[in-house]
């Protein structure tokens, strides 16, 4: 029964402001905890953040000095081309990621209860919009510092340019959620930035036109200042446009990214990146829909090879990604020191090989799939392992000519360690939620989570340390 003052708004009445609703939501979530507990939690978080920041800074400083030290590769040299190519690659990657993820989303509760009502959408989405801007600026600053250092460029203009560019990209992506035309334009811009960046890295890798490009990019201070001012104006303009567009974002667009956020959250909380990749694979498969089936033939070995080939032919993304990462690695070679290059080769290889092992991952994670093929699932797992080994060997073969001249040991570690780290990561059994929890300072954590860390990522970290020591 409706009481006085609770009647719903009449049809045709203006949109209800969302700010009081937001305030009420905040208040209701706050009242679930006593004030003392709430303050204690804030204190814990601040304390933990401060400790981590101090530890991180302390640990990173010697590593950074170590990485910047003289290696066996060519000594670092000022490279404006490297700076420009890297920043453009970062911006292109940011646009691609934000367009895929959907920069602003809404939880199902908000979607169901609030966005279906005639509430002013901008009021509800504003906090997320501000968080996005802050996050984009922070990430850009963090990335810009090592890039400026590696390129021997002035830090402040680089950081300012990175922050302004990141805010432009992030807010333009939000604008793209409300307008298809902006989204299409953004897609084109991402492709163009990526292409220019790849040409830049190609020039760095081959040396073709490198000197000319470097001298062409040597702009007088006035031009740099004008460029920075233009970037800042673009950032403000895009932020303003995106803010005004918040009201026009459809609920279907806001919900599209929710599945990805949920999968991402599950992947982070269970330290299993495959939870996210499985979701992405399924979304991609839905977008593809129908394919032209290949004839696999009667022989099992031949059928396996044809099936793998069909998979690669349909999803060439990992191959293209591997080629780009390889080019970037060679582009970094004239600029970065030996230890940094070796680490980049190992981490790059890990990221490149992992997406090529989907068959092995599915077999390891799904008892149902294994039982379909039983008892021949071992043959299938063996063939998938061969794909994993072959991919690792190909990656190693593509970077070894750049490593071998100054360290054969690093080359051996790269080949064997990469295969081991990828294999251990991919063949992790699915998380057993019934495993007993272990009490930690962060609260009870399932014992299984440790296995997720130990199997693969920890091995990669140990290899990185080993490579750092040897490549010195």
């Amino acid at each position, binding site marked *: 029964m409706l009481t006085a003052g609770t009647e719903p708004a009449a049809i045709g009445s203006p949109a209800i402001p969302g700010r009081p609703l937001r305030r009420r939501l905040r208040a209701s979530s706050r009242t679930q905890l006593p004030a003392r507990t709430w303050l204690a939690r804030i204190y814990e978080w601040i304390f933990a953040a401060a400790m981590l920041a101090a530890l991180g800074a302390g640990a990173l400083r010697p590593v950074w000095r170590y990485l910047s030290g003289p290696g066996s590769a060519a000594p670092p040299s000022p490279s404006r081309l490297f700076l420009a190519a890297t920043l453009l690659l970062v911006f292109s990657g940011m646009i691609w990621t934000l367009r895929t993820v959907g920069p602003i989303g809404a939880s199902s509760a908000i979607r169901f209860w609030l966005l279906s009502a005639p509430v002013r959408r901008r009021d509800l989405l504003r906090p997320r919009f501000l968080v996005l801007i802050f996050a984009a600026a922070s990430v850009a600053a963090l990335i810009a510092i090592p890039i400026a250092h590696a390129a021997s460029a002035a830090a402040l203009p680089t950081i300012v340019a990175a922050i302004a560019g990141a805010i432009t990209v992030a807010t333009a992506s939000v604008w793209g959620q409300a307008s298809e035309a902006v989204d299409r334009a953004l897609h084109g811009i991402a492709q163009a930035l990526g292409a220019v960046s790849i040409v830049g890295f190609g020039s760095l890798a081959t040396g073709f036109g490198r000197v000319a490009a470097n001298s062409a990019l040597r702009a007088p201070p006035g031009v740099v200042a004008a460029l920075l001012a233009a970037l800042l104006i673009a950032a403000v303009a895009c932020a303003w446009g995106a803010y005004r567009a918040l009201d026009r974002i459809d609920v279907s667009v806001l919900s599209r990214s929710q599945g990805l956020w949920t999968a991402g959250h599950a992947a982070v909380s269970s330290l299993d990146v495959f939870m996210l990749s499985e979701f992405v*694979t*399924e979304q991609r*498969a*839905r977008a593809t829909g*129908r394919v032209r089936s*290949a004839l696999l033939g009667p022989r*099992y070995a031949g*059928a396996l090879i044809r099936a793998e080939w069909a*998979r690669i032919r349909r999803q060439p993304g990992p191959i293209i990604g591997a080629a780009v990462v390889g080019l970037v690695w060679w582009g970094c070679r004239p600029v970065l020191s030996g230890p940094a290059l070796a680490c980049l080769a190992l981490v790059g290889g890990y990221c490149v090989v992992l997406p090529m092992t989907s068959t092995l991952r*599915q077999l390891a994670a799904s008892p149902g799939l294994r039982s379909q093929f039983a008892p021949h699932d071992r043959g299938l797992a063996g063939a998938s392992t061969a794909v994993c080994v072959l991919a690792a060997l190909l990656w190693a073969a593509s970077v070894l000519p750049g490593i071998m001249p100054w360290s054969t040991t690093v080359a051996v570690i790269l080949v064997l360690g990469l295969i081991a780290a990828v294999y251990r990561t991919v063949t992790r059994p699915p998380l057993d939620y019934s495993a007993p929890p272990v009490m930690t300072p962060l609260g009870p954590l399932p014992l299984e989570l440790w296995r997720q860390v130990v199997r693969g990522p920890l091995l990669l970290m140990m290899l990185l340390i080993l490579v750092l020591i040897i490549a010195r």
Partner: protein
Amino acid sequence: MRGRTRVVTDSRPPAVHPPPDDGPLLSVSGLSREFGQVPVIEGIDLQVGWGEAVAVTGPNGSGKTTLLRCVVGTDRPSAGAVELCGRPLREHEPDTRRRIAAVLDDVEFFADLSIAEHLALLLAAHGAAAPDEQARALLAEASLADAADQLPATLSSGQRRRLALLTCFARPRVLVVLDEPEQRLDRAGRAWLASRLVQEKELGHGVLIATHDSELTKTVADRVLELSRKVSC
């Protein structure tokens, strides 16, 4: 006994001849399973003969799925024994896994292969002579011919169920174990499933299903094991 059991590959395989001693295909005795202090099933005795179908029925939480999991070896019983073809069932043995075809949970498929390719790869793994043709024939039988070139993620839940059941009928087997196979199937799908299971019996295969569908039970089952707090057969 092992040498005399014919393991078939074809989608319409020749009939399986039971061994001369005429022992049961599957024998379960005194099977119990507890989760902590909670007994889920207690002292279950069950036999499935060659060419016989047994339906397990009962309300939610009566332990139907747990029983089937123990039978196929994906769960370990707290007490009791399971024998397949007169030998203790050991899930890790290839021979055991070759003989049991089971669909208990949502079955996964390779995301980047079309469903025709997935079935053909499965058939090739099990040594079929013409996997591509057999895969098409199986898909046509399950009314999935039009979806043969689709990726699994694009199938409806009912189509996924049909495909999961097909993976069972495409592989070698002497015992078919299905957990609520009628779920998400339409009327035509249920009719197809019933006729397929009757055909399995005619081929000499054993069938063990957990179901809530009385029509399917009436059509297929030779015996019914009803699970409740008090187990009776």
